[in-house]
């Protein structure tokens, strides 16, 4: 149990689990979501998106709307 779960006594035998329909893949626990090359590409594109937002801010005081 992770420390995000509240500490309570287990439910009684009257409780029947509702299955998620998925099977856990123990081998992937803690693995990074992407390989290094893909992760670097994602980071690069995210930075480009952030940079465009920052450039938008720089001129946004000069455009007046009536």
């Amino acid at each position, binding site marked *: 149990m992770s420390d995000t779960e509240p500490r309570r006594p287990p439910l009684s035998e009257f409780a029947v689990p509702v299955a998620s*329909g998925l*099977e856990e*893949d123990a081998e992937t626990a803690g693995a990074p979501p992407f390989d290094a090359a893909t992760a670097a590409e994602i980071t690069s594109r995210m930075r*480009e*998106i952030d940079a*465009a937002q920052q450039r938008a801010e720089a001129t946004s*005081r000069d455009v007046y*709307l009536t």
Partner: protein
Amino acid sequence: MRQPADAVDLRRPGALYSLLHTYGGASPQVLQAVLGQAFTQGAQTAIVEYRYLDADYRNEHSRFYSTTFRRYPSAADRLHFFTAPIPPELFSPDRPARFHRLGYLGYTVLRPVPAAPIGRTMLPPPPDLTGHVTCCARDQINLLGEPLEVTAAPFIAQDAQLSRCAQAALWITAYYHHLAHGTPRLLPGDIAVAVPAELALGRPVPSEGLSVFQLSAAATRIGLPALVYKLDDLPTGERLPRIACRYLNSGLPVIIAGAGHTFVLVGYRRMHPGTLQERIHFIRHDDEVGPYQLVENFLLDDYTPWQYLIVPLPAKVYLSGEKAEVLGEARLTTSSADSDNPAARQLHDTITTHEVSFRSTVLKSNAFKTGLECRGVPDPVASIYRRMPMSHWIWVVEATDRAARDRGDPCVLAEAIIDATDHLRDLHVLAWRIPGELVQWDPDEDRLSRRDLAAVPPLGSVARGPG
């Protein structure tokens, strides 16, 4: 005592002109557009509801019109449109007025301000644009004791004193979010107060207009913090239609600033898809012209060049659509490349040859789950998604077959579900489906769970627009 309402037979020659003459005041253009749209939608009857205590106008009166030497009434009139003729029993004082069988179209509030008569307006899209307006919400009305409903994209015209175009655009957006997502209702005075006047020269009231910076700041203060895009300096691979349609597909109004004016995009239609003549026609609410104005070529528009695109978002959508799409595209591309399933490998090949395009839509996870059946999602997939814990808002990045999309057929071959509140420096995909496999990432355990899938046919999209 004045009668509570009048019925106007719009089939009679001169009836529309009579309304325009009575209410158009010194600035009849927008009323003319509203009346014209109601008439083309088949309005045969108008009910004029007198002494209507409209919350928005009452607020404008309290904040501004009660402070002037010239007197303005504090009550407005409201005009309701119906597709049926006036029933004779409406004039009998012995029977309650009945309207529910008269084909209710919608309403417009008429301010008693000659320079700016059009207040809150809820009229459905014109017939040729029905299905293309993605930012419609349901409003409830009570007319002489009878409840009525209308589904429309909200509209208001600026009063040119308390509100200019930017405030009107924010009001349109805020009222839509109020109706569609249950955010607090904001009145014109609330929006005027939200504008940081100290960030510009001049006085806040009468408003001389806002800068884009002030508009963005006001959006934050009203609880709809905005993404702002400078349209001549977009990230690589992004274009105005692509960004605008991403948010319109999500049912989020998009504010455009250009040529010193601002207006709100509420939908779009794709013309001649899959051909060299393919064009996006945007549908806008222009507070100085009227609702549902068609923009056939944004590059040749009256407000060209469009300079900024501003998207007020629900506060808990932390992740932009552009970032979600980068993440979802990477997930679906790498997972399909690594799969042993022939259909998944074929998906990867079509991604590489650009026969597949990615489409990103933000929506509430509950709406995603309840809509699975309508989109034709097979039970084994729907069952897993419905049981999956998700954030309140999710981005759904879909890999779509372009040709099928252009034909209007189900086109979604794979999708990635992204937590719209995820940490920007540790982004994960909550779940994804590619041919042969559905995978979930458990953020509590940092662990993946899987399920092998039988073949799934192309599915309908979560997007509200045509793609």
